[in-house]
């Protein structure tokens, strides 16, 4: 099972790095919002995989909170982009 966890975490890390590259490159705020949203998904997935690895379920409430907060942050940031463009 260790090999499965290692492979999964390695792929998630690679995915996170690629997403981070899009976050740095932009080119505008909307692309960064999408990249941050995906990055948070990777964090949720990695934390979830870490639970059976460490045989510790303390991180479980963190997953729920992250899943809700990701949504709030993205929607607020998208509204801010509209506001900055003078549409709201």
């Amino acid at each position, binding site marked *: 099972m260790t090999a499965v966890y290692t492979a999964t975490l390695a*792929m998630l890390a690679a995915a996170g790095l690629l997403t981070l590259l899009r976050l740095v490159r932009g080119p505008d705020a909307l692309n960064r919002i999408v990249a941050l*949203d995906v990055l948070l*998904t990777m964090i949720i997935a990695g934390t979830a995989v870490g639970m059976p690895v460490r045989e510790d379920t303390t991180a479980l409430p963190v997953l729920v909170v992250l899943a809700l907060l990701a949504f709030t942050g993205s929607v607020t940031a998208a509204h801010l982009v509209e506001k900055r463009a003078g549409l709201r």
Partner: protein
Amino acid sequence: MTAVSDVATAVLLPAGAIFCLLGSVGLLRFPDIGSRLHAAAKAQTLGLLLILSGTAAQTPLRYAPVLLLVILFQLLTAPITSQIVGRTAYRVQALDRRKLFRDELADRLALDGTPVDAQPSSEDADR
């Protein structure tokens, strides 16, 4: 029982990780915000769903409802985020309308008399 859940985890976790990886590759390589949203949604819904299912097979059964709750939140909120970001991209002119196959909102805006193309481009404002 342990063997069954081990096999389930060994299948589900890499499958979900591959979806996350492909989603981020799409996010990096696709040309505009619309197609990037499409790639991101794959990692956000199916990728996370598979990984959390694989995790649920390894944790005690009483924790499964909480993981189900996370999946439910994600399935509910990811489309809303995509829709709002997509609408914002349309409104601030970050989306190239000539590339759209069908542009139903343009007809509606023309009907309302909203000057869509007269709006200032936010490309410069965001940088």
